[in-house]
């Protein structure tokens, strides 16, 4: 184990971390604005991964192209989901909301199991097999491409929230629900839009993730947890925080895999979550309560 391997791994962790960050960004947007604990987040990611597999195997669609229709579809589905199913639950007690999404997650995971079976599926892109050489370092081409897409998507999302009127309206809702209603914003529509955007983020993340790893139906819950860990570590309500959190988790997983054991890498993430919850509950970049 030499310094070069460590650097290689760290870089790989950063790249994967950016992808995790995009997934978490979707959750941060949803949780931060609509305040719904989306326990089905990981399942949505898994569905996106399967959708990409299907489009690839049946239509020969490259994931980098497929992400556009998949993201659009997810936007629509997310919008409808919020509007139709989740909106009435906003005023209900928290455990009711959880259970709604847990129920949804259970249905989704097992529907996937029914349709695709338990075996792993993957997408093989031959043009990504060659690693990129940067001096003495070797970078996985797939990871670089996926991270690139993640970065671009995140940037687009930032721009939307910063510069468009709708984006600002959504931020207003997040800051002050009642105030937003008072000034005439259609909060329910904005919530649905936000859920749609969050879902689209997850979709893009999923389309890219399948390029790097295989998919099985049971990946969902793990991703949900990971997304929450990242959002909390990075800071709720902070979009750069979600990306930063993602990178941190990506790197820590990579290094933990090297120094401890690959299967123990999640332990690090959970330990980090516990630490953050205790010492700095608003997260690294979050606003203080």
């Amino acid at each position, binding site marked *: 184990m030499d310094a070069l391997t460590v650097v290689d791994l760290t870089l790989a962790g950063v790249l994967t971390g950016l992808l995790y960050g995009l997934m978490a960004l979707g959750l941060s947007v949803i949780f931060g604005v609509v305040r719904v604990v989306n326990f089905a987040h990981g399942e949505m990611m898994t569905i996106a991964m399967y959708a990409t597999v299907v489009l690839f195997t049946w239509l020969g669609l490259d994931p980098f192209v497929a992400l556009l229709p998949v993201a659009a579809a997810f936007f629509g589905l997310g919008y409808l989901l919020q509007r139709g199913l989740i909106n009435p639950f906003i005023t209900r007690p928290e455990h*009711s909301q*959880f259970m709604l999404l847990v*129920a949804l*997650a*259970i249905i989704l*995971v097992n529907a996937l*199991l029914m349709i695709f079976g338990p075996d792993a599926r993957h997408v093989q892109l031959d043009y990504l097999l060659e690693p990129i050489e940067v001096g003495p370092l070797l970078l996985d081409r797939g990871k670089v491409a996926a991270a690139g897409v993640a970065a671009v998507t995140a940037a687009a999302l930032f721009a939307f929230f910063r510069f468009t009127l709708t984006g600002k309206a959504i931020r207003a809702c997040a800051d002050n629900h009642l105030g937003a209603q008072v000034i005439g914003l259609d909060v329910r529509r904005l919530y649905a839009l936000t859920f749609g955007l969050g879902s689209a983020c997850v979709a893009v993340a999923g389309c890219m993730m399948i390029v790097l790893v295989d998919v099985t139906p049971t990946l969902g819950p793990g991703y949900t947890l990971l997304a929450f860990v990242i959002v*909390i570590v990075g800071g709720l309500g902070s979009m750069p925080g979600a990306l930063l959190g993602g990178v941190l988790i990506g790197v820590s997983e990579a290094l933990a895999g090297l120094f401890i054991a690959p*299967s123990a890498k999640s332990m690090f993430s959970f330990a980090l979550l516990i630490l953050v919850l205790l010492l700095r*509950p608003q997260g690294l970049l979050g606003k203080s309560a």
Partner: protein
Amino acid sequence: MKAERRATVLLAVLACALLVLPAFANPYVLSVATLILFFAYTGQAWNVMMGFAGQLSLGHSLYVGVGAYVAAGLFFLYGVGPWAGVWLAMLACALLGAVIGALAFRFRIAGVYFALLTIAFAEFTRIGFDHFAPLGGPGGLFLKVEQRQHLDLLALRGPPAMFYYVALALTAGAFALCSRLLHSRVGYYWQAIRENEEAAQALGIDVFRYKMLAILVSSSMTALAGVFFAFYYNNLFPEQIFNIGRSIEIILGPIIGGLGTLFGPILGAALLTVLADSSTELIGALGWDIPGVKQVLYGVVLLGVVMFLPHGIWPVLAQKLGLRR
């Protein structure tokens, strides 16, 4: 007091039916009944924390797992019988609960964040046990079953009926304990905290103390479920016993049955187990033997209950039976 008399009569009838069940049930029904009682008990234990005190724990599999592994480990490594091991199991779980509670309540972690904290602890422990070789690691821990014929209550070995009665005793004990607690000062204070923490504090209630008490009672009760699990199934895998699916299984019963009620967890456990079983039958009969169908049905039922019966089925049922206003 017509309603109370009715309730007592129904309760007596139920108790009698449960007591004589093994005489009439075939082995399959007996095992299903034992499973129902196991979930009823575990659900009741979780209900103390959530239904009574309003603290949402989504990582209760932690206590089942730790309880199971401590008792099983003591038996496996040192030959310590379950009746001795159970004390250490309860202590371990109470300590864990105390740690989680102290961390959460002192640092003001509530609601979603508290739920996530409990999940994190459960997951952390799962991975930990996966790498803990002395207790089998991922390959699992297997307990030797000496015999299944004659009753050896001390070693918890015997015919399936024995396990049924142990589970029944646990459930009945939990019911009695929760009933007692609910109608005592502790129960009233818990409910006050659940309903409105700030108001509770203004009435002189030490909120931190009572929340801790809830988590201690809940975690130690759940430890017992773990011990039972260990000696009933005799094999433990970290992936299975600590996983979040287990935690969700535990809470389904009380939520569907009725949070904060005494009968809710029991009713919920019964309904869910029967649903699971009959759906397995139905699916087999229809030839839809695809993995995942049963759980989809679970999910749909859960969705239905959450959407249309937010307080669970028991309050509605109780009203229909004339047991409540």
